[in-house]
């Protein structure tokens, strides 16, 4: 696996907000077909990393490659190149219908009949969205909004799906549902990079994981190894430390 070209590669990424350094040289690789999770506490720089990949915050230095090719510097070009982000806090378009939200996800595409196929596909992943097709997104429950946000990202037919805190503010049972669907989405050919505070849930889903602490990646490894790692256990898996962790 290590010989192959990673589908997404971040090299020595630095991002600052004024005087505050948010990322201090982050490097990671995601291979085709993988689910990779990045875990870390609030403020570690997880969302910043995702936004830097999407070109929503300017990079101070560092490179990002998609299949060995430099990633574009404008958000809309990044989407066309095949990366799509489900942002933290879902950010569905509340005054638009579920259908219109999904069509927004397909905005850069011109292949109209394929869009119809993908609509059927995301409805098969999240049948509840089909029932609520004409409803305003703002009237959906938190879990349904998260499903919509993920489905909306999938409508651009991404090679790599970035997910920023998909479990945020959701009931454990809904989180389970959503993570099961993520597994299915992955098995249907979408590579996933996931950042989560809910470390246990994320590592149980992913193949590999990274630990991000105040702008640095301090650990990486196979998810099972990280789950078994006493340091990780202590800092991120203890039930008191993370919000929304499902107790076993």
């Amino acid at each position, binding site marked *: 696996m290590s010989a192959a070209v990673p589908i997404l590669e971040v090299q020595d990424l630095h991002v600052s907000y004024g005087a505050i350094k948010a990322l201090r040289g982050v490097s990671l690789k995601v291979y085709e077909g993988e689910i990779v999770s990045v875990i870390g506490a609030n403020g570690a720089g997880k969302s910043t990393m995702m936004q830097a990949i999407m070109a929503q915050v300017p990079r101070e230095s560092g490179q990002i490659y998609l299949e060995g090719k430099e990633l574009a510097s404008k958000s809309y070009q990044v989407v066309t190149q095949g990366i799509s982000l489900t942002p933290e806090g879902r*950010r569905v*378009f509340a005054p638009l219908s579920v259908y219109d939200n999904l069509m*927004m996800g397909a905005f*850069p595409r011109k292949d109209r009949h394929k869009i119809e196929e993908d609509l059927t596909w995301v409805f098969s992943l999240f049948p509840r969205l089909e029932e609520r097709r004409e409803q305003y997104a703002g009237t959906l429950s938190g879990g349904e909004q998260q499903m919509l946000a993920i489905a909306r990202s999938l409508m651009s037919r991404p090679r790599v799906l970035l997910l920023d805190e998909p479990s945020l503010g959701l009931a454990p049972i809904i989180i389970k549902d959503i993570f099961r669907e993520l597994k299915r989405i992955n098995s249907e050919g979408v590579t996933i990079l996931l950042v989560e505070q809910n470390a246990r849930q994320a590592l149980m889903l992913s193949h590999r994981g990274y630990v991000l602490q105040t702008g640095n990646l301090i650990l990486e490894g196979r998810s099972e190894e990280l789950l078994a790692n006493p340091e990780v256990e202590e800092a991120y898996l203890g039930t008191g430390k993370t919000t929304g962790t499902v107790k076993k």
Partner: protein
Amino acid sequence: METLLQQTINGLSLGSVYALIAVGYSLVYSILLFSNFAHGGFLVIGGYICYFTLKSLGFNIWIAGFASLVGAGFSAVLTERLAYKPIRERTNVTLYLLIASMGMSIVIENIFVIVAGGRFRALPPVIPTHPVHIFGLATTSAFDILSLLAAVFFLGALQLFLIKTKWGLAIRAAAYDLRTAGLMGVNVNLLISIVFFVAGFLAAVGGIFLSVRYTLYPQLGMITIKAFVAAVIGGLGSLPGAVVGSLILGLAEMLTAGFISSQLRDLVVFSLLIITLLVRPQGLFGKNISEKV
């Protein structure tokens, strides 16, 4: 009774011209969350392009009108690119955009003072203004009816654009959350240019009708204050609100002029504004401020 009907038609006609201006202003507000004070400038640009095209290319209102709308549209895009884009790329503070727009408003006004002179100009009689009798009940002018029809046509076209097209959908999404619209693969700068083009285009329609109604001069853009008031009464950022607010304002002005005194028109307009701000600060169709983050 006759006066009532007549003034109602006049009020709707004036209100519909306000609506053309208010809708563009509100559209810009909904995307960038600042009051574009240069909006009145777009209207003046439209008016002058129409005037000079008529003077130089003969009295064909269709050619002059088209040149005016498109020219004002591109001027609005240029204003955005020159004055607002550099600011919004550096900061999220919309106050700076507001201040820049005040500056652009002064710049545009003075360009016309220098180039065209400060005097009042009457547009050649290209829009019929002869009196029209409505079922023998009231008398109004063909101009009022035409301006009402033109406004309905352009507002309807805008509505169709927003509901039926892909970019219309993107604009509606961006009005709720511009940043997330960018994540969907929308070229945000292009979207903002389209919005400014539409705003300038519609302002020019209003500009032509206002030039005929009041004559054309560089400060004609000041009349947009009425459209601002209308947009605030209707709810900033809401397009139906802008239309309803404009009609209320047009009717209030004309009914005051017809039944009390035309001197009191502006008093009534600003009283309506103050009452709205006291009773329902978010306007008739406005979103709750707390809802928009």
